[in-house]
């Protein structure tokens, strides 16, 4: 097996009295594409957000390339967390582009501020990644002048420009009009082909089946089942997985 990029051990996360994650163990290896599926409220987004420490674990550890987010005394030092986050790119459902910056400025900002690159260097990198996501023509547009699909591609370019080793996608296509989903999936698929380590939360089952090396089915804060896409989608072992997959693939059928 290639080297582990993310190691999650006994991860618990509670919001108040609600325990959202109830002991998650997960290892993601280099170049692996892990897709997390599950009903809403299953904790899949929370798990993803724990992977780059946007949510602090209530207990348990998350390691990135062997380094834990918490320091030796178990505390979450902000500088340490921020430094580790630069190794992980994240793409959000709501794009979260910076509205006062043009597309290229969005992609340049963190390179200059965090990576301490010069403006020219940052610009070069930004151009490279905006071209990669097919937006060379739209570099000087503001977010509100772009379509949803274009915004999401800028967001992907912005994450890639930090040259992370891992990419996280949190329902990256859920807020898009159906006709714009394809252009974003295409970019993600290209990244997959290039061997980027990725963890995706998605409702696009066909896409999950196609790009995923491993599918993780979550429900009620635990990993119910995981395995190869062909196994999970065609021969799920657990009843809950069966029900869920049946429901998403045939939404018109009655609930059992």
């Amino acid at each position: 097996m290639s080297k582990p990029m993310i190691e999650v051990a006994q991860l618990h996360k509670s919001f108040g009295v609600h325990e959202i994650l109830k002991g998650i163990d997960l290892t993601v290896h280099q170049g692996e594409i892990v897709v997390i599926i599950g009903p809403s409220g299953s904790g899949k987004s929370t798990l993803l957000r724990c992977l780059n420490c946007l949510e602090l674990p209530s207990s348990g550890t998350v390691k990135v390339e062997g380094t834990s987010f918490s320091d030796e005394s178990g505390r979450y030092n902000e500088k340490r967390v921020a430094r580790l986050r630069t190794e992980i790119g994240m793409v959000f459902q709501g794009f979260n582009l910076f509205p006062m910056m043009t597309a290229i400025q969005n992609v340049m900002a963190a390179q200059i501020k965090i990576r301490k690159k010069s403006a020219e260097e940052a610009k070069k990198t930004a151009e490279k990644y905006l071209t990669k996501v097919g937006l060379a023509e739209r570099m000087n547009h503001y977010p509100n002048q772009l379509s949803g699909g274009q915004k999401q591609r800028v967001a992907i370019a912005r994450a890639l420009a930090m040259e992370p080793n891992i990419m996280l996608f949190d329902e990256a296509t859920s807020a898009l009009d159906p006709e714009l989903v394809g252009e974003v999936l295409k970019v993600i698929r290209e990244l997959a082909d290039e061997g980027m380590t990725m963890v995706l939360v998605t409702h696009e089952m066909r896409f999950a089946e196609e790009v995923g090396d491993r599918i993780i089915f979550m429900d009620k804060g635990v990993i119910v089942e995981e395995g190869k896409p062909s196994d999970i989608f065609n021969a799920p072992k657990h009843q809950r997985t069966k029900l869920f997959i049946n429901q998403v693939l045939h939404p018109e059928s009655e609930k059992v």
Partner: protein
Amino acid sequence: MDILNHLDFATAFRELSPELGQGLLIALEATLGGFLLAVILSVLIAVGRLSNSKIIRGILVVILEIVRGTPLLVQLVYMFYVAPLLISLVVQFMIPGYQFQLNPLLAGILGLGINYGCYLSEVVRASILSIDKGQTEAALALGYTHRQALWSIVIPQATRQAIPVFGNYLIMMIKDTSLLAFITVNELLLRTQAYASQTFLTIESYTILAIAYLILSLPLSQVVRLLEKRLSTHV
């Protein structure tokens, strides 16, 4: 009706306008200084009120209540007449015989700046809170610390949003500089008072003064309205 026959706007206008011109320069100086101070204070107070430290938040709330619970005129008078005395008293412990003097215009700038800074801080705070949490999260995910995300992503958006409201406060401040007459700043009102009491052209003098303020503030309101439109484009 006798008064009406003796109205002499021509003379009043001729003699008073150069005075008003001089006074206007001082009023603008006070506004510029006062507003700059207010803007800086407002952002600092707003950020302080959103900080995790209970002590900082507590101190700021007390200051805000004092400033908002007392009239601006009283604050100006306090700043000019009382604050220097208090400072002198404290410093006299170390340097006997020390007398601290505050220039009236500077006292005015400080008074206006602190007062407006407190009111504006509420505007800035509301704007900061109105910025989508996703903005901070996106910045954090890129490796920003909370502080960096606040200052380089959230606050630029918040202040941008607040600019039209700032504009309205700026116009209010220009008008409020007339209060500086009470702490001997030789601005428009004080000069008009002096002129009116010398010449007894009371109606003429104060009418001209009121019109002068109108001429000043009406175009500025238009500018603010324009700004509001311009800034709403990329939000």
